[in-house]
């Protein structure tokens, strides 16, 4: 059994963040019915990588979902949506602020049809505040949130995170908020409105920087790959790439020197304690460590330090992480049979639950794949469906 079996989600989300939230719900058993614009579909259907005209990105984000293709601007289209919402638990959307209002599908309207509906919205800046109307792409939100300012080297430019961090974070917050609302609904029968912004989400993960500013009135500069209070904690050159290590106690330090054959460095008075190693890091210790690491391969160093039970990891390319035995053992790469793309490999489910594990029941839907099924369910006859298709109000596969 999956924990969200029996939960019905009417899903207007597109692109990345919102679709990620409903993907998490679908992985754990919710019935996610994606409402896509007739003739066009989700924007992510056009996102690279594209193979034979089909997007891998879309297939990842929409695995396990159903698709209804519909023209929601028409009166008949709206009527269908309202019928679908009647017995749904959740409505999700990540349009630009105000779009659902203009479509006549805002919270107030849908609440009249289904008073206990959970209505979750996600966008760049949220449903309130002076910037609620602005559009922000991942790069802009990373720039504004402070995340870029905290990433990179003190003498270099602020740096973007090399994954869609804002989308993943905000999508996960949205999935969590929806689950909290489901718990509340289960206990009280009451629905509610949820409002998630990507900017807030990114701002919430800046670690100690906000409280440092609040208490001190200033924030130290970004620190690159090192960490000021632990030495050595950094990423070092190997002869074929890079390797990261973290040594937090003096005992670990001497073990590290021994494992790496760095007897002279171990005997050096300048590096005897964590504090001394910090003081003399840039002026000598970093170079002394790299003198040894740069003559070895990254996986060789990783093996030696792991055998010594020290925290260490080679900097892997993503294709190298695909070969990592731990990632394989944890089923973090799964093969999904996708209708459009055939068998494809994608990231698995990081949430491991003993009694209610997640599962990917099927690949992403074709545009309008489930239109007929759901129209039938809400009482449309074959003739009525044919008429809706002819009038281009809905689309079927």
């Amino acid at each position, binding site marked *: 059994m999956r924990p969200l079996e029996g939960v019905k989600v009417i899903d207007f989300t597109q692109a990345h963040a919102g679709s990620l939230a409903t993907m998490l719900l679908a992985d754990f058993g919710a019935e996610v019915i994606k409402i896509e614009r007739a003739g066009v579909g989700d924007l992510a259907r056009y996102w690279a990588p594209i193979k034979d005209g089909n997007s891998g990105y879309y297939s990842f984000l929409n695995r396990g979902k159903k698709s209804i293709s519909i023209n929601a601007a028409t009166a008949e289209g709206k009527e269908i949506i309202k019928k679908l919402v009647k017995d749904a638990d959740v409505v999700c959307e990540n349009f630009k602020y105000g779009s659902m209002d203009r479509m006549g599908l805002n919270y107030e309207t849908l609440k009249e049809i289904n008073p206990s509906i959970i209505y979750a919205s996600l966008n760049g800046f949220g449903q309130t505040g002076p910037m609620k109307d602005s559009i922000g792409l991942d790069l*802009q939100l990373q720039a*504004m949130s402070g995340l870029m300012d905290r990433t990179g080297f003190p003498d270099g430019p602020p740096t973007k995170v090399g994954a869609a961090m804002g989308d993943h974070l905000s999508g996960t917050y949205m999935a969590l908020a929806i689950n909290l609302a489901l718990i509340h609904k289960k206990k009280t029968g009451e629905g509610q409105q949820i409002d998630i912004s990507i900017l807030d989400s990114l701002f919430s993960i800046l670690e100690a920087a906000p409280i440092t500013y*609040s208490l001190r009135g200033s924030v130290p500069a970004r620190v690159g790959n090192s960490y000021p209070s632990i030495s050595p904690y950094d990423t070092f050159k190997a002869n074929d790439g890079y390797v990261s290590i*973290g040594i937090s106690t003096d005992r670990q330090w001497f073990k590290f020197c021994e494992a790496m054959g760095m007897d002279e460095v171990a005997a050096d008075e300048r590096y005897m304690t964590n504090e001394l190693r910090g003081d003399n890091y840039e002026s000598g210790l970093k170079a002394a460590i790299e003198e040894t690491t740069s003559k070895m391969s990254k996986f060789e160093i990783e093996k030696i330090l792991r055998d010594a039970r020290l925290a260490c*990891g080679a900097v892997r390319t993503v294709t190298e992480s695909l070969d990592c035995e731990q990632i394989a053992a*944890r089923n973090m790469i799964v093969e999904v049979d996708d209708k459009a793309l055939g068998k494809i490999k994608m990231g698995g489910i990081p*949430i491991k639950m003993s009694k209610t594990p997640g599962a990917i029941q099927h690949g992403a839907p074709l545009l309008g794949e489930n239109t007929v099924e759901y129209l039938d369910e809400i009482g449309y006859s074959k003739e009525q469906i044919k008429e809706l298709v002819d009038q281009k109000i809905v689309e079927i596969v």
Partner: protein
Amino acid sequence: MRVLEGVKVIDFTQAYSGPFCTMQLADFGARVIKVERNGVGDQSREWSPIENGHSGYYAAINRNKEDLAIDIATPEGRDIILELAKDADIIVENFKVGTLDKMGLGYEEIKKVNPQIIFASLSGFGQTGPLKNLAAYDNVVQSMSGIMEMTGFPDDVPTRVGPAIGDNFTGLNMALAIAMAYYHKLNTGEGQMIDLAMLDTIFGILESPILFYDLLGEKTTRSGNNDAGTLVPYDVYQCKDGYFSAGLASDAAWPKFCETIGMTELTQDPRFVDNELRCKNYDIITPIIAQFFIDKTRAELQEIFSNAGIPCAPVLSVPEVMEHPQIIAREMLIDMVDPGVGPYKALGNPMKMDKTPAQLISGAPLIGQDTESILKELGYSSEQINNLVEKGVTGIQ
């Protein structure tokens, strides 16, 4: 009303990942009893910034929690935990794999006193697989997952994401897992075990490189602050008072972009006529575009690009974000008086729910602050408590 009111959580977590998870639960009303090692406490109590001898780092992620100081390695300490677990809903821990088992407080033991318990474990590599016993720091997880290789500039070193995303994002995923498990418990009465790994969670956000490799055989790497493989211009440019991000949302916006920067001649240049050519000639076009930015301030640029409807944003420092009207309007900063560090601006919760909002009620607890009241609740007499304190089993304020 708070959605998790009445939910009891025994929280063994320390440092950043686990406390970030239980903070989400406490924000929404769960009673989170933080169990700290008597006389020692959470390691983050020593992490900077330190104010009045108390850690701001600790304060920022432990608000709204209660605190029990106890030595769980003693038989009396273990008894207290088993007593406490009888009517608990959730246990969360982020020890090294197997630590609680060794103390006789693992899932199997707890299940004997409370079969419905939700037992959530968070670790670097997870409870299974060949690396499960290894220690991990955030930099090790970032290295092994591929995110570090994807972050930074192509001609420079792989770069760590500044804030410890291995910790906070895994903590957030754990909160989601717990909410789903609790929902399942409400529906069926069944508890279970949850197992989350930092490595899985961070690997899970790298969908794009996995899909590019699987579908097209293409290996992707870091591209600094641009997206030169897909869309040009979409970048961060140096300006008079810092850095500014601006870019196209799609190829169709190119003429508008040129007009905005007063370089309409670029639309005629055969090297730049379409997106594919601009991607190919990224190194030629970038210094030309960059000229527009170099002598203008972020505020000037914001006005110019916003008026043109081109996605844009200044790169803000943490102090700048904290003074930003959008962050303030979203109630992302809330005045808090912490018993340790005193007054500071606490981060609001990004999950905005209209019926069951997050509430920041109290600051982070002092060590052992609630030992006495919790033990009394369990039926211990004042005499017994004094006895336990004298033996060093528990600590009180």
